[in-house]
């Protein structure tokens, strides 16, 4: 059952964007499009011709494909609670976070290649904020390692569910909180970046893909959806109770993913975007929360 992790990622990637769209439109009193509307847009994009800017070089054309490859490669490591991931080795979360970082690296350079000041601004913000979020993920992972004593995703989530005492509950709550924040920042949702804004000056991720078109834009959308699914699955693994069989677990998976999508939709409808120079402070709070989790585990176990 090694492929379970990958399958669940693809499944949730199919549903998540649609549900988010639907929750946002219901919250704002509209009926909202079908669940698979985002994928219909992607299908339209795939059929389009492509327009490239004169200033861009070969790198700009290569970047979307490579960043999608990084996300696909990252999704191989995600386990479905007890059922193993495609690859798993000691410290695979290091490879996971660095492969995502190289994806970001390529998208940032592609943005700079277009030579427009908007894309430069987006690239600068993306680089700056992703630099600030790096420590949060690593501190969270070290808390899990302190709690479970093993260093790869699969073993962490196996031992994680087994202990079942009150420490686990605290960590699952904090884990969900931190992972949710990281997911929002990584997939550039509301508190840090607003996907629906029209003013280039306020965008971060959207403005970096201004000049992509057709096939490349589709690839980028797919990679964002996949990344969202990956984080959804990570949140699921943290919260799943240990004594469930395979069927109950998949039902619980669907429940958590829908809940995850709905929360994102609600957050986007009811919360405004942060002021741009407030973002560094906001992102640092995420690392602070993770640091508190680590401090707790340190005092408890040592």
């Amino acid at each position: 059952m090694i492929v379970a992790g990958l399958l669940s990622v693809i499944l949730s990637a199919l549903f998540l964007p649609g549900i988010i769209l639907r929750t946002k439109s219901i919250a704002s009193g509209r009926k909202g499009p079908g669940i698979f509307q985002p994928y219909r847009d992607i299908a339209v994009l795939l059929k389009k011709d492509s327009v490239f800017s004169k200033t861009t070089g070969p790198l700009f054309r290569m970047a979307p494909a490579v960043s999608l490859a990084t996300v696909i490669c990252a999704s191989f490591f995600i386990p479905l609670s007890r059922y193993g991931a495609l690859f798993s080795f000691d410290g695979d979360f290091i490879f996971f976070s660095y492969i995502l970082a190289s994806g970001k690296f390529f998208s940032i350079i592609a943005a700079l290649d277009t030579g427009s000041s908007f894309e430069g601004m987006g690239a600068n913000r993306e680089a700056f904020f992703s630099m600030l979020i790096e420590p949060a993920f690593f501190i969270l992972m070290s808390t899990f390692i302190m709690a479970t004593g093993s260093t790869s995703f699969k073993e962490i989530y196996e031992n994680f569910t087994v202990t079942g005492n009150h420490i686990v509950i605290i960590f699952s709550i904090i884990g969900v909180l931190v992972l949710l924040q990281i997911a929002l920042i990584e997939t550039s949702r509301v508190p840090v970046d607003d996907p629906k804004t029209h003013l280039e000056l306020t965008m971060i991720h959207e403005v970096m893909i201004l000049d992509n078109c057709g096939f490349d834009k589709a690839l980028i959308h797919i990679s964002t959806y996949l990344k969202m699914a990956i984080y959804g699955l990570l949140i699921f693994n943290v919260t799943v109770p240990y004594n469930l069989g395979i069927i109950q677990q998949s039902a619980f998976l669907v429940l958590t993913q829908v809940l995850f999508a709905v929360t994102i939709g609600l957050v986007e409808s009811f919360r405004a975007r942060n002021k741009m120079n407030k973002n560094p402070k906001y992102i640092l709070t995420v690392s602070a929360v993770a640091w508190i989790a680590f401090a707790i585990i340190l005092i408890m176990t040592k």
Partner: protein
Amino acid sequence: MSDETFFISGVFCLSLLIFLVPGQIKYYLSLAILALVVVVTSYLSLNQIFEKTAVQATTELNIFPPDGLKLIIDRLSAFFIIVVNITTLTGLLYAKGYLRPYYKVKNDIHMSVHYFSYLLLYFSMLLVVMLRDGIPFLIFWEIMAVASFLLVIFDAEDRSILKSGIGYLVQMHIGMFFILAAFLIVEKKTGIMSFDGLKNYFAYNPDTFLFLLFFIGFGIKAGFISLHTWLPEAHPAAPSHVSGVMSGVMIKMGIYGIIRVLLYVQDDLLTIGLIVLAVSLFSGLFGVMMAIVQHDIKRLLAYHSIENIGIIGIGIGLGVIGLAVNNQVLAVLGFTGGLLHVLNHSLFKSLLFFSAGSVYQATHTRNIEQLGGLMKRMPWSAALFLTGSLAICGLPPFNGFISEYLIYIGMFKSLPLSDLYISLLLISAIIGLSLIGGLAIFCFTKAFGVTFLGEPRSAKAGEARETGMDMIIPQLIPVLFIVLIGIASTFFVRPLISVISDAFAIAAVPQSISASVSSLNAISLSAGVFVLISAALLFYRYLHLKNKKVVYGPTWGCGYRACTPRQQYTSTSFAYNYLHIAKPLIPTTKVMPEITEEEIFPEKRSFESHSEDVFRKAVADKPVEWMWKMLKKLAVMQTGRIQDYILYAFIFIIIALILTYLKVI
């Protein structure tokens, strides 16, 4: 005469021949000599690492047998010899193209001095790594400084290069004084002036003070944080092939010295480990934070060497802490990560300096604010610089990731096992290392993006042409090694673990280390998968777009028609929001004459901002200025009047008599 003595004296006379040989043949002669020595020494060191399985076995060579130099190659020096060989060979191959325009400008003797000091630098680095007893070690340590000084001041017509070269020489001399003082203390207590004397010195006397002396002496050469003041000056001044070799390999001699001393340290390892870890964490962070605000590409790379030295130092510091709390996993993984990063850094840093050199040769400027759009004009150098920056940021398919992974996994594995304080240390190291990784990505996206992508910002960048193939091909050697280590990392990590266990006499390699070595195979596998997937996607994209119509138009400018290259993001603007949080540590001054009210039609204005290095001012500039002024005030004796000259003698006698009378002297 034994064959080693014959070989060494023969090589030295051959290199003296360079002075007599005219023109281009100088280059080929020095290349032949270098290649010969590279082959011999690499054979010696490879067989030392792989064949000599006996514990602590060493190959011994003695030159001028009775009391001449005694060279000992153990596994540690063998590793460093290989690191030195790779980069120096690529440096000289690259120099063929880089130095061609200089033949017209420089005269014959100047070129032969350059080639001779290049070979001298190479030989002295080899000998520094092989020597154990004090005086020859110090001699070749200083010859290495003098040779690199002569290389740095190659195009000395420009006064600022001369100034930074001399500053470099003086600071290397300070480093030598520290090491000399340390050796003399050892010699005073134990009577032997050599590294072996350290063993019984450390047995009876406190270790930290002497280690600190050694650490400062070697740290000045390595470029740890407050000792780094020469690095951002010397590297940009040197010609690119020299700065590639210097920052790739010569800095590592300082690291070699620190490790060599650590081999002999017996007690209070924890405090030493703490010092090394703290200093390297801070140099890593400060190095990359300073690198982000630089405009000159070679200064940016120089500050980045400080960051990578910090990462190596973190590896070594963790190794020492592992030894202190005898946590074998942390010790072996920390040292292996540190040593592998020594090899990795020498590869991608020299690659970056060489491609920056080709950019400099094509555009004659190092200020990235004036470059841009070079990707289309110099595709090869751009591709090489890209691989270098991917590797230096530690991104997966390349070698930088492997050494950072080893350091990370060492920390994560020992987190659950260690007590409260060690875990606090480890978590701070983890946070530091991840921040360094993020900052490195921030810095190199800026460097690569602003230099190679977008539109050319100046005429110089506009007319840049790709450099000759003879400069591109040598740079492929480090690229080959980078990819090789990235993909097939176990071939490199396993011998490194044997080097560490032999050096630090850690007998049994515990089970968890062999587990993390097997995970390296998994990493290579997943890196291969990643490359395959991206290749597949690109191929599918090619197929998909083959029969589609492709139209070219201007970049999206929100409908503004008259976009100019000056509107692109420059390096200052890219680092703008970062500067807000880094304000206390990096004071930037903005020079912008503001527009007064009565100025109705304000004329052309220019904005420029530059940031200085807090440490340089505090550690180097202020004390030197104060002493300089004081010394100048003292020099008033030469007044030209005879009576003053006799007065000095008179006063000297009177004061001496009074002092002796009062029994002071």
